[in-house]
């Protein structure tokens, strides 16, 4: 079974991001970039499937400029067998990403595609679902557990009411939630080996996709600073403020 895993280059989750002075975007100058945490979980799950003998090959794919090869190498160090970069410039919106991934899926014909449920930069939570629609493959989103049984895939999903288990026919698409697994650290020998693993680079044209823009980012602003609290003199005053100022009761 071939598993395709999508990985995205994002600002490291430890970094406190700032908006650019002109409000046009998040300031990425001298900011540490990493693999999106949900994508890291997706890679870990694919590698575990391979270690369990269920998967035969794990392919890590990323879309972006040359810098995203760093995140592909991270995935290779974590245990993926080979990498694919689809080279694009600037930011690419989820629908285009999904179309590009569809092109890779058609080339590679994986039985399972695992993506992070969302990236921590845009928080769109769209690509996996769009890819499912474009490829007409069944999807199990927000997965906290998956199990392969022949050509069937059992996906336990985290939903509002608790856990929901789906049975999907493969090939299928899964998006990983936080509790799917705890990713390993890449060992130093594996980091060395990752440098020698194959990494193919495609252009969007190679995949028959035209990179278009449907969305315009109007502005980026930091969230409003939290105001200092006040001390009230009595319960009556507290109730009055909750009722008339906060309007929560």
């Amino acid at each position, binding site marked *: 079974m071939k598993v395709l895993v999508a990985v995205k280059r994002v600002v490291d989750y430890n970094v406190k991001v700032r908006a650019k002075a002109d409000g046009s975007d998040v300031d990425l100058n001298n900011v540490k970039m990493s693999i999106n945490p949900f994508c890291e979980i997706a890679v870990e799950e694919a590698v575990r499937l391979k270690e369990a003998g269920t998967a035969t090959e794990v392919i890590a794919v990323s879309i972006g400029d040359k810098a995203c090869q760093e995140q592909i190498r991270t995935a290779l160090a974590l245990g993926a067998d080979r990498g694919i970069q689809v080279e694009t410039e600037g930011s690419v919106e989820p629908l285009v990403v999904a179309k590009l991934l569809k092109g890779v899926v058609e080339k590679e014909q994986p039985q399972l595609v695992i993506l992070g449920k969302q990236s921590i930069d845009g928080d769109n939570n769209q690509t996996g679902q769009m890819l499912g629609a474009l490829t007409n493959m069944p999807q199990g989103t927000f997965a906290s557990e998956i199990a392969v049984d022949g050509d069937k895939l059992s996906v336990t999903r985290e939903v509002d009411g608790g856990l929901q288990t789906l049975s999907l026919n493969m090939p299928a698409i899964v998006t990983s939630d936080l509790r799917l697994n705890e990713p390993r*650290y*890449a*060992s*130093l*020998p*594996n*980091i*060395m080996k990752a440098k020698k693993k194959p990494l193919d680079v495609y252009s969007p044209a190679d995949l028959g996709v035209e990179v278009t823009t449907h969305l315009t980012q109007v502005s980026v602003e930091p969230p409003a600073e939290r105001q200092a609290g006040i001390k009230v003199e009595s319960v009556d005053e507290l109730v009055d403020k909750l009722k008339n100022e906060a309007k929560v009761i």
Partner: protein
Amino acid sequence: MDFTFSEDQYLFRDSVGEFLRNEVTPERIRAGWESPTGRDDALWQALTELGVTGLTVPESHGGLGMSAVDFVLLAQECGYVALPEPLVNTALVAVPVLQAVGGELAATWLPKVADGSARVVCGLANNQLAEDAHVADLLLWCEGDALFALHPGQFTARANASVDPSRRLYAIAIEPGVEPVLTGAAANAVGGLAMRRGALGAAAQCLGLAQRMIDMSVAYTSDRQQFGKPIGSFQAVKHHMANVAVRLEYAKPAVARAAYSLFTDDPGAQRHVAHAKLAACDAANLAAKHSIQVHGAMGYTWEVDLHIFMKKAWALAGTWGDSGFHKACVMDYLMYDDARLGATGTFS
């Protein structure tokens, strides 16, 4: 000449640093103080799986065959988290000593270091006490003109207190009848190698400790408000930390050069290491002093994590040669008639 570290070296530093920062928390260090051995087998196993213990072990013995230059950035990361485990001693001192001794001793123990099945540490009688002798499967002990390779049972270890609760120090008494593996000039040469490498490891850890104390102090003074502003915005506070940052930046190249000199067997390696140890310990000492000040009275308390790092810095300053020892080494060179001083002699 390119003095910068390579992309791979930074990649290793970042990978190991991420692991250490996530796993070696102040809470875990404090828990270690309460345990009988003070050492964390699960953490050592995880470091082994990461491949760090085998980084300097030759490839022929199952390691990655890397050098002091490759390891020095990792040692800084060990300092940043005040790692209690004897990783720096093992990788930077014990492994080269085993290699220098060679033969069956190296063939037996180097693969065990690489696969994590044994802990090997090295100590000098000049240091008075040996660290981590209680958990060592093999203690390489340099005493007088002899080098001993001691297994548990071949020595007695009497515990001594340390200013740093993470350190476990022991006075070593060798059982009668135990023969050294090297004697005379050969043992002295290995003892010198251990001293230089131990001092380099201490210096590199001090860089990390200084950085950690700066980061903690900057975070605290950015958060603590007085007169409606963060106290870090006041010159009296921020200049303290700026001075530490400057001292630290000047110490970093000295440590990198010392690592390179050891790697290339530079004839000036001894004084380069002495310079590195003096500069790095000085930076860490200043960081400790000013960090206590900018934290206010609470900086000196047990509850605030700052003391974990400053006590380690104080302890490292006195081991593998104190400042007097290393200053004497630098002075010997300065007073030498043919000393090449000034800018023209820097890279000669």
